């Protein structure tokens, strides 16, 4: 039983990191319809910004804030300088997927050429271990869970109850109609990219804290699990992304504790494939038609 409980604890931490990132990934996708496979690279790049700040003595939580801002700015810059021009140039949905992969590869390997293939880790104490019944979590892990809960609640609340959130949802459903109703689409889209990048930055630092050592390609490797969580929940649905993250996080850690820990990701992907066979649109999303890229 205690194996189960402690695995559940790890599962919740993994789910927290996944939720932050998957909400960022899926929010931007629902608003703009660009499957941004460079998302993992934004995580890594912001994670490294936090690393460099951390190296000169900045506290890791302050560095995480800087990484969030940095991730947001990188994300907006990628969209404005690369994706937008390509969309205006007439590249279709699938062409854009390939463009985002190119951007991700260029970022990852550019970073790798600079920092080399070695492993890095933050200089941050994990904090005292706290016991709740059989749960053992460090202060750091608790902080990550709290950050994830707060961020996902804020994003969900903002989408549900603010005018901006309404504009984003409107843009996701019908960009032309949203523009006709006076939604300033350009700035709403830019904001969606910023929020997505900021969440990538926070998710990246949280991920690197959790797994303790990272390389220039760690973010892109983790992106596959993020995609699994987002697809499981139904791409484009932040609520679904949180649920997908919980399922993937808990299934991987609990399954890994009882079975071969190297195969824990396989479990998550198997769950995803089974769910998709039964419910092709994912758990939460409506069966939307494929739409063109929003601009």
């Amino acid at each position, binding site marked *: 039983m205690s194996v189960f409980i402690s695995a559940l604890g790890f599962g919740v931490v993994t789910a927290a990191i996944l939720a932050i990132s998957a909400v960022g990934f899926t929010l931007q996708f629902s608003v703009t319809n660009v*499957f941004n496979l460079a998302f993992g690279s934004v995580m890594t790049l912001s994670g490294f910004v936090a690393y460099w700040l951390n190296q000169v003595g900045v506290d890791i939580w302050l560095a995480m804030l800087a990484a969030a801002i940095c991730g947001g700015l990188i994300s907006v810059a990628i969209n404005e300088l*690369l994706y937008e021009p*390509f969309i205006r*140039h007439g*590249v279709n*949905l*699938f*062409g854009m*997927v*390939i*463009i985002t*992969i*190119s*951007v991700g*590869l*260029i970022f*990852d*390997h*550019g970073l*790798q*050429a600079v920092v*080399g*293939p070695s492993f890095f880790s933050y200089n941050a104490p994990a904090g005292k271990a706290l016991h709740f019944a059989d749960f053992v979590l460090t202060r750091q892990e608790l902080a990550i869970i709290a950050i994830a809960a707060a961020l996902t609640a804020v994003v969900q609340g903002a989408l549900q109850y603010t005018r901006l959130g309404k504009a984003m949802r409107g843009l996701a459903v019908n960009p032309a109609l949203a523009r006709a109703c006076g939604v300033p689409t350009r700035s709403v889209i830019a904001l969606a990219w910023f929020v997505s990048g900021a969440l990538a930055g926070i998710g990246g630092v949280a991920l690197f804290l959790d797994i303790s050592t990272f390389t220039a390609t760690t973010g892109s490797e983790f992106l*596959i699990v993020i*995609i*699994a969580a987002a*697809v499981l929940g139904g*791409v484009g649905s932040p609520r679904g992304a949180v649920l997908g993250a919980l399922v993937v996080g808990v299934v991987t850690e609990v399954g890994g504790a009882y079975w*071969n820990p*190297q*195969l824990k*990701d*396989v479990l998550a*992907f198997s769950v*995803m*494939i089974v769910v*998709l*066979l039964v419910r*092709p*649109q*994912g758990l939460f999303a409506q069966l*939307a038609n*494929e739409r063109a890229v929003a601009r």
Partner: protein
Amino acid sequence: MSAGTQYYIATILVYISVNAIASWGLDLQFGVTGVLNFAFILFQAVGAYTAAMLSLGPPSSNGGFQHYPFGVHLPFPVPIIGAMLVGGALSGIVGLITLRRLRSDYQAMVMLVVSVVATVVIESVIGLANGSAGLSLIPNPAHTISGVSRTAQSWLFVGICWLCMVLVGVIMYGLVYSPYGRVLRGTRENEAAIEAMGRDATRARMQVFVIGGAFGALSGALLAEFIGAWAPSDWLYPETFVFFTAVIVGGRGSVSGVAIGAALVCVGVQQAVQYLPIGSDPTVLASLEWIITGLLTMLFLWMRPQGLLPERRRRFSIPELRKLPAVGSEGAVELDA
């Protein structure tokens, strides 16, 4: 020519043919039919492993240092044919899961995930294909011919690869420039229209998925026999992207264009990087290869999205169409290539 130079040229020629075969497989799926197969490298890997197991002999051979479920020692063309069959069959299974019910953007993502899962499984379950170490000592069929020099054997293997390339090329021409090819292009361009004409778009996608997978497996089988070893590091999921770049640079849907793209991107970039004056740090060189590949893709999608040798498109003006005999009557002219 020294033996070293000859061996270098032979290696380049083998790589050109193997990559052309693989790129054609992906071109049939992505270029012609519009299926975004982000798991393509998986089928090359399956071909390589199958060919290895069909030619290595039982796991106890070579002192039993490698772990794999079974193995036989079969004569030359059999391992390659077996690899194509297994590659096609696995394509069929993956296609059944992904192509039938999922939205096409989900399809692409799920295939990406499948590719990663396969790597994880092969790396962690050692008994399947010797884990991360991979299989080695895979026999090269040309090396079994005795009485000739090693150089002659290399050239013989080049001959085998180019023969396979020509065969696949002929099949590609037959498929792409035919009424069947029109169904495939129709599936890519306008699924609703092709279904309205009474063609099954999902079936067309499944078919190219299986055929392309078999081509991918063939390329993997040849590659494994040439290198003599095959490991998970040879088929990490970003490798699929190199073939996408080859198809985009060469010209989506164009058979001869994609062969040129494969030679330029899969072989040319790697060779060119070796001669750049930036030192010889292997990490920097490998990173540079990826950066150049990414930049090439973006450059081509911006400047020349149709590729170096674009797909042929026939256009008829309305008066010309009126002069044509009715469809189905004697002397009816096929539109579009």
